[in-house]
């Protein structure tokens, strides 16, 4: 009986439709579709320079969203990542100005990112304090600490060799885009095929069931936050090296933009569902929309409102989907 059922399922044309209806496919279609529509209105939008600026300027958001997606899939949330990126960027820049070896300036944000996020993971997992509270506290500490230490001064006089974002691989592929693609693909592959990646979905999907099959929720959560810290470190490097100066502030609500990318990318806010491919595509889409607004003469301030609409639409769709699942 079952063998026959499978055979029919494999040949079912609805499977193609289902694959196309996946969040990732919808986002890819939206990214391309939007480019075409805006390009018809204003061809300058499609200029290589504009498109590459959009990607270069926002790759760090996509990289941070990779880690954020893991955190949300595990059933947690992190709102400290925006401030952490600011701190790590300043740390790296300060080291560079002080003449530290370039390798150290690049490595330090990764290590500190892992430590700070890993520590939050420990507090969340072992003291059983909700992630939103722990990371809210960390957000204030990092943001307040950064302003106090730097006095709001920007870092200038950065050595040329520091600018990781300037490197072009094979003279064509800019480092930020390369890192965004590599981070996304490696993370996606790892989450899909590794036993530990599977554990993240299990813990986020049903922590009690995961515990009963011997998957440690605590270790999984700490691991996820440490990884998230690693990706935040890469994001901070890209952010720090994309301009000639490092501001002591990050874009306002950076953490919310990153969370938006994850959620719009199909990561369920309830945990257990989602991929980093989706979140990277969503990060690109959001950046593209922001740029498109300028080209169609709409105030770029509308981007926040657009993000809001995207979030609500995807979250409502996700909740409705879950409810139907629970009802069946």
């Amino acid at each position, binding site marked *: 009986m079952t063998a026959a059922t499978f055979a029919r399922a494999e040949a079912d044309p609805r499977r193609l439709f289902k694959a196309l209806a996946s969040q990732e496919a919808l986002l890819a279609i939206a990214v391309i579709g939007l480019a075409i529509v805006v390009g018809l209105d204003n061809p300058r939008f499609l200029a290589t320079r504009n498109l590459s600026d959009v990607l270069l300027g926002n790759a760090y958001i996509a990289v941070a969203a990779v880690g954020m997606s893991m955190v949300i899939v595990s059933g947690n949330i992190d709102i400290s990542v925006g401030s952490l990126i600011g701190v790590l960027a300043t740390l790296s820049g300060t080291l560079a100005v002080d003449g530290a070896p370039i390798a150290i300036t690049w490595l330090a944000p990764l290590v500190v990112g892992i430590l700070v996020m890993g520590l939050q993971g420990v507090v969340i997992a072992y003291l059983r304090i909700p992630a939103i509270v722990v990371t809210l506290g960390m957000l204030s500490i990092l943001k307040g600490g950064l302003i106090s230490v730097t006095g709001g001064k920007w870092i200038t006089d950065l050595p040329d060799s520091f600018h990781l974002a300037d490197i072009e691989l094979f003279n064509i592929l800019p480092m930020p885009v390369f890192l965004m693609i590599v981070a996304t693909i490696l993370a996606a592959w790892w989450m899909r095929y590794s036993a530990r990646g599977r554990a993240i979905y299990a813990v986020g999907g049903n922590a009690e069931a995961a515990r*009963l099959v011997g998957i440690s929720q605590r270790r999984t959560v700490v691991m996820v936050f440490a990884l998230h810290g690693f990706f935040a470190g890469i994001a901070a490097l890209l952010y720090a090296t994309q301009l000639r100066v490092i501001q002591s502030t990050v874009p306002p609500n950076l953490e919310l933009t990153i969370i938006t990318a994850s959620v719009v990318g199909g990561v369920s806010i309830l945990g*257990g569902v989602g991929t980093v491919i989706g979140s990277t595509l969503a990060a690109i889409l959001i950046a593209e929309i922001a740029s498109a607004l300028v080209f169609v003469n709409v105030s770029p301030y509308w981007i926040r409102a657009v993000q809001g609409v995207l979030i609500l639409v995807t979250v409502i769709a996700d909740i409705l989907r879950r409810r139907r699942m629970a009802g069946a």
Partner: protein
Amino acid sequence: MASATIASATPVLSVRNIEKSFPGVRALSGVSFDVAEGEAHALLGENGAGKSTLIKIVSGVFPPDRGEVIVDGKAVHLERPDDARRVGIATIYQELLLFPELTVAENIFMGHAPRGGFGRVDWRAMREKTKELLASLEIHDLDPDRVVGALSVGNRQRVEILRALSHEARILIMDEPTAALTEYDVRRLFDIVRKLKARGVAVIYISHKLDEIFAIADRVTVLRDGAHVATKRVAETDSAELVQLMVGRKIESLFPKITVPIGEPVLEVKDLVRRPLTKGVSLTVRAGEIVGLAGLVGSGRSELAQTIFGVTPAEGGEIKIRGKKVDIRSPGQARTLGIAYVPEDRGAQGLVRPMTVRENFSLAALGKVAFGGFIDRALERKLAGDGVKRFSVKTSSLEQVAGKLSGGNQQKIVLGKWLANQPKLLILDEPTRGIDVGAKAEIHRLMGELAAQGLAILMISSELPEVLGMSDRVLVMREGRIVAEFTREQATQEAAGAAMMGGQGVEQAA
């Protein structure tokens, strides 16, 4: 005595031919009973007999499919709890529904506080009325200004009763009110119930503690499998008869337990202690044997299973797996030792709903399909495909989201994922609760097969026919201890039922 007047009094509440079905389950099939003014009427039945469904219909939580509820001779439509309140029906559930941060008076008058000018709350009147209510029940040790969260369970329950009275409830439903009470609080509760009866309040009292029914009730109605079995005057019956009415049904030929040679002990437990609900348990389960663990809800059966499985590690005693003494501190360790545990609450503890059938099947056996930390997809698909075939899980594909399957199919996956790990001991907690008859028969068939393959099975079930039909041996647990043991031949509904309830004629286990 109130009981003398029952016959003449017109019933204040009667329910007629109530029927109610949920997807896959017929919860009530034509139940009728009535309560008279000043009467305490007990509802008695095993878990799943339909008591809760019946009181939820009377309290307006959901409407019946068929049948009617009659109050004061008039049929009423109870669509919402508010409708029931308006006709004078109040229900006190096991989980008390109070606001712990608010005071006694505020809780009592939540939603209908006495008002002064401009709609403001008249606090003084509220306090006065609370005092009147307290005085009417001769309660002198409850301060209207105390915060409810600081009260004992018994006192909180009294607040709920007072709240019901503040609505001028004439029919008070109490669902297992003594489950969490101390002896002293039980006596005080009975005092209150007697006072309420004297005031003409009709009390519907749900319990499966027989001594309480004899202490407080005038009549008792017994439900079984959603049907009305009998209504008796308490004065004219005894506990033996009630037990027999509760459990006395013939065992359907649903249970294909194959007789297989019983092998070596797989699990040996000696004087296992884990407070508060495991108080020195000893038992043995052998290869090829199905041991049924019967008992009422709250007797400590699931807690025992979770202690063996390392969810709540033991505080004392000894566990041996295949003759070797082990110290199980976590589920992961139990799994490595070859123990599988299929939990009671499939939704909350078993299935990862958003995951696919394939992912759920491999979850407990990731070590068997993952190499160097990475999952071999082909092997995983084969493992899941085999499970789907073996358990005849009805799913459109392995990539189907497990949460979308029916309850019976979900249960098969939860069971199946453990077998992928090739355990030696299988602990099943209520393996067929809430699934339809067909899926139930299949789970029973599988259990028989697994035992035949030499698996040791410890099955917890609240359905006596299932326990008696499936088990080679039946253990009865009550209040954290094994109180009786029967062989398959000795085990009867009456004997096991009596041991569960703590009635007469209980054979003490060795």
